[in-house]
């Protein structure tokens, strides 16, 4: 207790934005590493959806290519929602969010770190899900498979950035488990459509999107919604 109060104003300037993001991200990843709540819940749910769909449809190779993109995207979407619903649960518990509201850094860094963490969790689930998916649906992409490495992360980012934002928006609602999909799905629909059609084009190799219009749309969607969410998050965070 040696610091004089008069010095505090100058000393308590916030750290650099990237440093704040890393601080929040480190904390989120450490907590997830210890609890594995989000990844376990998502993985179990996504695998279940993929296996059930493959048993229900028993598709031929051609049909698989037609429907696989939809099944993969919907499985990711539903699995992610279960985790995104809990994205801010730890901050709500024990009023941690109030303590974070008192810190000088602002909410955007906290939000961005949470998006990065959720993106990481969903990507891990997709990495496990992908091979299982290709085996169960007996898939062999006829188009440029390397484009999947662009399309899937772009679509996942669109889902996660909106999901994290709307999870925070519905945080104080009693029916937040119901509210999140109700708000998220309509907003995410254009990105979902772009993702499904892009993946389908890659799997079937039909050449229906030679100028990669859907991929460009996904990129544009990501930039617009990431910017909007970053700008508006402080308003959501400071709501009483």
């Amino acid at each position, binding site marked *: 207790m040696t610091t004089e109060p008069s010095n505090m104003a100058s000393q308590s300037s916030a750290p650099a934005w990237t440093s704040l993001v890393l601080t929040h991200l480190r904390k989120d990843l450490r907590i997830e590493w210890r609890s594995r709540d989000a990844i376990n819940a998502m993985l179990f749910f996504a695998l279940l959806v993929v296996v059930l769909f493959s048993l229900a449809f028993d598709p031929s190779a051609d049909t698989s290519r037609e429907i696989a993109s939809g099944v993969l995207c919907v499985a990711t979407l539903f699995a992610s929602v279960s985790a995104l619903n809990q994205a801010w649960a730890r901050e709500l*518990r024990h009023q941690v969010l109030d303590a974070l509201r008192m810190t000088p850094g602002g909410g955007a860094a906290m939000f961005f770190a949470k998006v990065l963490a959720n993106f990481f969790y969903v990507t891990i689930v997709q990495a496990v899900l992908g091979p299982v998916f290709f085996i169960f649906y007996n898939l062999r992409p006829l188009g440029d498979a390397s484009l999947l490495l662009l399309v899937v992360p772009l679509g996942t980012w669109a889902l996660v950035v909106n999901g994290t934002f709307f999870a925070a928006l519905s945080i104080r609602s009693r029916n937040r488990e119901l509210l999140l999909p109700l708000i998220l799905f309509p907003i995410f629909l254009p990105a979902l459509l772009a993702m499904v059609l892009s993946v389908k084009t890659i799997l079937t190799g039909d050449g229906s999107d030679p100028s990669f219009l859907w991929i460009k749309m996904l990129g544009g969607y990501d930039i617009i919604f990431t910017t909007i969410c970053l700008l508006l998050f402080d308003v959501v965070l400071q709501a009483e």
Partner: protein
Amino acid sequence: MLPVTETGINKPEQSPNNLTPLIAHLDSVSRLFGSFAALRQVSVDLARGKCYVLLGENGAGKSTLLRILAGLLRPSVGEVTVFEDSEPRQARHRIGYMSHAPMLYDELTGRENLQYYRDLYTRPERSGCLNPDDALRQVGLDPALTRTVGQYSQGMRQRTSLARVLISQPELLLLDEPFSNMDVESVDQMVRLLATFRSDSRTIVITTHQRELAAPIADFIITLKAGRLHSLDAGRPSL
């Protein structure tokens, strides 16, 4: 007892608060939750370097008053200024707020929690913050403890929470029921720690049901009744 007007405003010329610089000023503050008024026309000045103990029954408005001072709630009516002319919301990094909940992550150790909060405040190289280990030692906890906060007892969580608040070395310290779930020895240790804190010209506001526990550091005792400022008495601090 110091004079309190009908609206709850203690007359400035008669208040000993005027002898020292003000750190917070509440002018006819009311706070409504729907149709329920948690605070009604509360006016009070808080002086630098003093300890105020806030007493009142459940629902008297103690926690609401603290949250307004912390900038976590806005008054429905009235005006609050801290540090001369700032809104609490703009000066929150200079205020430490300890709720009755621990405000800590269960999955992290006490030290990890404190390091996280410290990193959110300042660049380490020009830090005015306490070291997490020192903060934990000050509240009587072992920094080497490897258990996560979720495995702590209530009293240990309370002490870690106090360390969290102290780490940023705030000028205005707001403590909501800090002595709940603590044994007598820990309370004594905490009160002595707060006395040191106050002697650094920092202001402390404590809400408690246990008046006698905070008495040794209480410069003033504010009593709230049904959301109104009922009295503001001078205390008899012994520390």
